């Protein structure tokens, strides 16, 4: 958890809903965001994450519920009185103003004097590593530079809360990854309470203290990135965060079984979940030639045949058809001593899964 700035405020969202006629875009969402926390709203398109952000900024009127910044109720405040910084998806930098005028815009509105204005614009430009760009036109900037200017404009007036709507979606993959790290670094330095919206799970995992996953207007899970990845509460989350294959398991006396074979579980309590499914992360499985590994109580073993091997650079992706008929993906990292004697298409293999990676998720949702 990062250090919070003294001016940072906690945000309390209580039973917030937004209906469009019969359609419920956001359905009684409650979540608390600590002062200085970086929370990401993650979900497929149409899941309500952007609507929630628009309600926080004041651009969409909630049907019911409450939003508090610290101890101030803001649901009734118009957007220009909320003092919340926001980075828009397409940046919304004013094309008829220079970079400097764009950044000075919120300062002038707050009655900041000319001298101080120039000083603060200079400082924030240095912060986003675009020092000396004051006089550039917006059209002269690249996508990545526009992103930084939008960020600079959103933080220059020291808002108590920063909102970001898909801030990196317009950038190419490489730049996106650089900016993820940079935004996180900036957040650690400024300690502003930050709420970001994305549909990119890697972006959510990289930048956030906690991630709130949305599904059909409701919160499906709110957790730290690591917990979300390791302990998803449902198949929906497991599917959405990272790659996974799922195997149907049966309840038997003494736990759960797949294909008649009792599974060694990381957490025995998982056996009581409704509609249990075995979640298999491709990188947690090891593929070996059939009969080469010994069975023990810390390893679960599945038998099958390699259907295909795809070379993907840093790793090899195997598709293995299990004898029970299910298909499982396995990722083996590309290290020369390992890859040289990996099985190829059509060969019989065993898949090994450490008991501590044997996680069960709820099947529905």
């Amino acid at each position: 958890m990062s250090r919070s700035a003294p001016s940072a405020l906690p945000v309390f969202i209580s039973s917030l809903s937004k209906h469009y006629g019969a359609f419920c875009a956001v359905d009684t969402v409650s979540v608390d965001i600590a002062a200085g926390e970086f929370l990401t709203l993650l979900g497929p398109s149409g899941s309500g994450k952007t609507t929630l952000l628009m309600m926080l900024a004041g651009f969409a009127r909630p049907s019911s519920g409450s939003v508090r910044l610290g101890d101030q109720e803001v649901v009734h405040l118009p957007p220009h009185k909320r003092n919340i910084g926001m980075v828009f998806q397409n940046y919304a930098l004013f094309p008829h103003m220079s970079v400097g005028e764009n950044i000075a815009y919120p300062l002038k509105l707050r009655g900041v004097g000319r001298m101080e204005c120039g000083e603060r614009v200079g400082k924030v430009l240095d912060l986003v590593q675009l020092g000396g760009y004051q006089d550039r036109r917006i059209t002269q900037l690249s996508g990545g530079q526009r992103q930084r200017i939008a960020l600079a404009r959103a933080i220059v007036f020291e808002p108590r809360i920063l909102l970001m709507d898909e801030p990196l979606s317009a950038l190419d993959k490489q730049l996106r990854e650089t900016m993820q790290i940079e935004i996180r670094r900036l957040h650690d330095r400024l300690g502003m309470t930050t709420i970001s919206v994305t549909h990119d799970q890697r972006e959510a995992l990289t930048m956030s203290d906690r991630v709130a996953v949305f599904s059909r207007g409701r919160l499906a899970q709110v957790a730290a990135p690591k917990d979300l990845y390791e302990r998803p509460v449902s198949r929906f989350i497991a599917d959405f965060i990272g790659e996974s294959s799922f195997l149907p398991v049966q309840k038997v006396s003494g736990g759960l079984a797949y294909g008649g074979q009792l599974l060694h579980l990381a957490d025995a309590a998982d056996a009581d979940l409704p509609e249990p499914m075995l979640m298999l992360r491709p990188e947690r499985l090891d593929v070996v030639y059939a009969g080469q590994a010994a069975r023990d109580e810390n390893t679960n073993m599945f038998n099958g045949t390699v259907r295909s091997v795809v070379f993907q650079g840093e790793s090899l992706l195997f598709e293995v058809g299990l004898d029970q008929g299910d298909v499982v993906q396995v990722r083996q990292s590309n290290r020369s001593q390992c890859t040289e004697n990996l099985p190829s298409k059509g060969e019989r293999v065993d898949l090994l899964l450490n008991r501590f990676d044997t996680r069960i998720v709820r099947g529905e949702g």
Partner: protein
Amino acid sequence: MALTDTSLGHIRPPVTDAELAYNARALEKDRRRENIQLLRLALPALAIVIILMVAPIGWLFSLSFVSEGGGLSLENYSRILTEGAYISIFVTTFKVAVLVTVFCVLLGYPVSYVLAMLPDRWAQLLLLAVLVPFWTSLLVRTYAWLVLLQRRGIVNETLDALGLIERPLALVNNMTGVVIGMVHIMLPFLIMPLYASMKSIDGNFMRAAANLGSSPGHAFRHVFLPLSMPGLIAGTMMVFVMCLGFYITPSLLGGGKVQMIAQRIEQSVSLFPTWGPASALAVVLLVLTAGFLALSWLIVRRLTANQ
């Protein structure tokens, strides 16, 4: 350094210099043939423009240098510059054009703004309302105004019945009538480009302004208005330039008291035995119009270059 990969070695059939040279020639020939074909396609349009535009204007231009006696002279132009009657016609023309343009902006900007803010379905319906009068004949619309605005017309009768006026207002056969009629006819020419340019302003600009602390009024003045400027200038110039050459409406609603250039040209033709004076007036009008169009083009280009 160019990267060459000829790893297929002996399977690869060799390419000779002669073959490469032949390819280069063939490609160049194709390129030339394509250009000629494109030119052939443009030829009919080009011919129409030359026959119907360039030639008549050239002829008009040459006529303007022919004096009453039939000799070559600058008499026609010097008369325009020196005779008081001509000067006052130019002044009237500009006065009408400026007034009509100002009222068009005052009425058209709010209408365009409402259209741009409405959901598409409503906007299209209202846009139709703006355009339908456009499809009826100019003459019919002008006569309709004559009926509405005359001494005992609907407007005066209504105001009288409401007790708002004691004597009928002089709404027609003067500058007022000309301006009212022309504003009505010109309004769509302002609304259309303005609406198009407002429609293209991303809603996030206004959201961003509000988010940064602008009240709706401040955001409008500092963000929306400047961004709608190119469309406003394009519409304004369109209206202004069209006003300069307007004929029917001022002659019908002006009652002979408002003389604009186009009316004077018509009179010249019937007044003088030669076409010289009328041609000279037409040339001056054309040059002025072209000048204003060039000016507006420069301004719009400067404004949009920044965006």
